[in-house]
């Protein structure tokens, strides 16, 4: 019998689709929320709408995508079945209810039992995910570089949510020593650089070579990223906890930045060593995302020296601009690009794999509506610049127009992904 042939590792179609569907819905909701309350986006980064939107983007759009993608990819990358599909559905229930409660309480800026219950439900969802993912990794015959990043990512995810919950409780039961906003930055870095950063680095170095058929490059830079990034995040967090704020920031923020720049170099090496010369839209959008990471990293370092600037006597919070570039520029572009690659793969496995050898089957690239996706690509890219101009120059109308364009792009993205689910007949393929 062939090795691995009786290990059924096909991912759960329903569980993964449910996560991707919820992710896209969260993105649309976040953009609508921003449009409805766009004036609030000009306050400092601790404003109700920014808190609500950031968490809807990170815990909705990004987290649902990461969980769905990890349910899909961990089993295939490590060649082991998902530990428990049922637990995945239970986790989804906690995640969804927790998210709705948390966003509601942030949006109305009331820190009370709703915040705590929402945060606690999210913590339960995260713990269930970590158990499921860790047991799946544990079941693998051998681990690899992606598995190592996933384990680190899971630890940071847990710390992020625990710390978030502690901060929420601190809002009405003031028990944490020190400045609340300074600890909030640790929570944000644990989440963005620790959890999302680790997952993106670990998964990218597996997927980008596969999609591009890259051969003959070294993974050394990725291992360097692993150590440097961990030193940066742990150092930054500890120095804040022990009150060495400014000294620690000047040392560890650049360390985190260096890690991400090395990661970008690794991606460039993978692309340089690709055999498949043509680039599809999914890869182009992803590369645009990786390039935005460089911009976000530089702005992040600049924040050490300039926290805000003034236009017409208005003080402008640079952290808001940084957050936008990071979340809407880097994370969102990368997610969109990668979903254009992994959703067709999921659909292909579910519907078409069994037809191989019996009839003509589509390729994964045939499953994406090229008109929708191309229009989305241009719309989303241009809207990012318009929104950014709105933020930088503090012009409400420009910001609103940019968000309108972004919403149109996001709707087109949702339509492109939905189209992938429409079954192709043999006639469609002629």
């Amino acid at each position, binding site marked *: *019998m*062939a*090795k*691995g*042939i009786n*290990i*059924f*590792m*096909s991912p759960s179609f329903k569980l993964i689709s449910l996560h991707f569907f919820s992710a896209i819905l969260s993105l649309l909701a976040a953009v609508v929320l921003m449009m409805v309350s766009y004036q609030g986006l000009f306050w400092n980064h601790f404003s109700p709408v920014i808190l609500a939107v950031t968490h809807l983007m990170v815990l909705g759009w990004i987290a649902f995508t990461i969980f769905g993608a990890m349910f899909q*990819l961990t089993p*295939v*990358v*490590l*060649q082991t079945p998902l530990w428990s599909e049922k637990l995945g559905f239970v986790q989804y229930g906690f995640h969804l209810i927790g998210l709705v409660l948390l966003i509601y309480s942030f949006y109305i800026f009331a820190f009370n039992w709703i915040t705590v219950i929402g945060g606690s439900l999210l913590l339960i969802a995260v713990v269930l995910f970590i158990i499921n993912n860790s047991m799946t990794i544990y079941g693998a015959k051998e681990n*690899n570089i*992606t598995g190592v990043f996933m384990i680190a990512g899971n630890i940071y995810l847990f710390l992020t949510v625990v710390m978030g919950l502690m901060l929420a409780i601190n809002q009405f039961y003031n028990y944490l020593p020190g400045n609340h906003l300074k600890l909030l930055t640790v929570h944000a870095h644990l989440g963005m650089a620790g959890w999302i950063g680790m997952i993106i680095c670990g998964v990218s170095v*597996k997927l980008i*070579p*596969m*999609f591009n*058929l890259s*051969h003959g490059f070294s993974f050394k830079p990725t291992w360097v990223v692993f150590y440097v990034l961990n030193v940066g995040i742990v150092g930054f967090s500890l120095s804040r906890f022990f009150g060495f704020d400014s000294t620690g920031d000047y040392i560890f923020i650049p360390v985190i930045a260096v890690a991400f720049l090395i990661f970008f170099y690794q991606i460039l090496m993978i692309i340089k060593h690709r*055999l*498949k*010369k*043509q*680039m*599809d*839209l999914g890869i182009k959008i992803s590369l645009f995302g990786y390039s935005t990471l460089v911009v976000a990293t530089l702005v992040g370092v600049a924040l050490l020296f300039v926290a805000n600037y003034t236009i017409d006597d208005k003080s402008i919070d640079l952290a808001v601009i940084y957050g936008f570039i990071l979340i809407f520029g880097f994370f969102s572009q990368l997610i969109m690009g990668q979903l254009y690659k992994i959703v067709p*793969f999921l659909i*292909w*496995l579910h519907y*078409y*794999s069994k037809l*191989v*050898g*019996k009839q003509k*089957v*589509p*390729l*994964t*690239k045939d499953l994406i509506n*090229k008109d929708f996706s*191309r229009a989305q690509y241009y719309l989303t890219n241009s809207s990012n610049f318009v929104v950014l101009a709105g933020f930088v120059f503090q012009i409400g109308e420009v910001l609103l127009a940019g968000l309108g364009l972004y919403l149109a792009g996001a709707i087109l993205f949702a339509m492109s992904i939905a189209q992938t689910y429409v079954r192709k007949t043999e006639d469609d393929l002629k």
Partner: protein
Amino acid sequence: MISSEQVLEKLSYVIDPELGLNIVEMGLVYETIIKEDVILVKMTLTTPGCPMHDTIVTNAEKTLQRAFPQYRIFIDLVWEPAWTPEALSPEAKKKIYYGEDE
């Protein structure tokens, strides 16, 4: 008795849907052995941990089983020698190296 060519012809229905190439032109099939009622296919994948691992191996087995029901099919997935781009057929190389951007 069937020939190796017949087995390879059937294996060419098994595709990598991402690249649009079949496993024969990708040079993933190393050897086919036909003995009595057994077909043994020694093959590899471009890299361990390939997301197409299960699909390609299962499809290869099922396609051969359908085509040659009187035979028992064995797929031996090996990692030595490792696959290199040199194994691509000239047509496959052309498709991969000179394809156009979308």
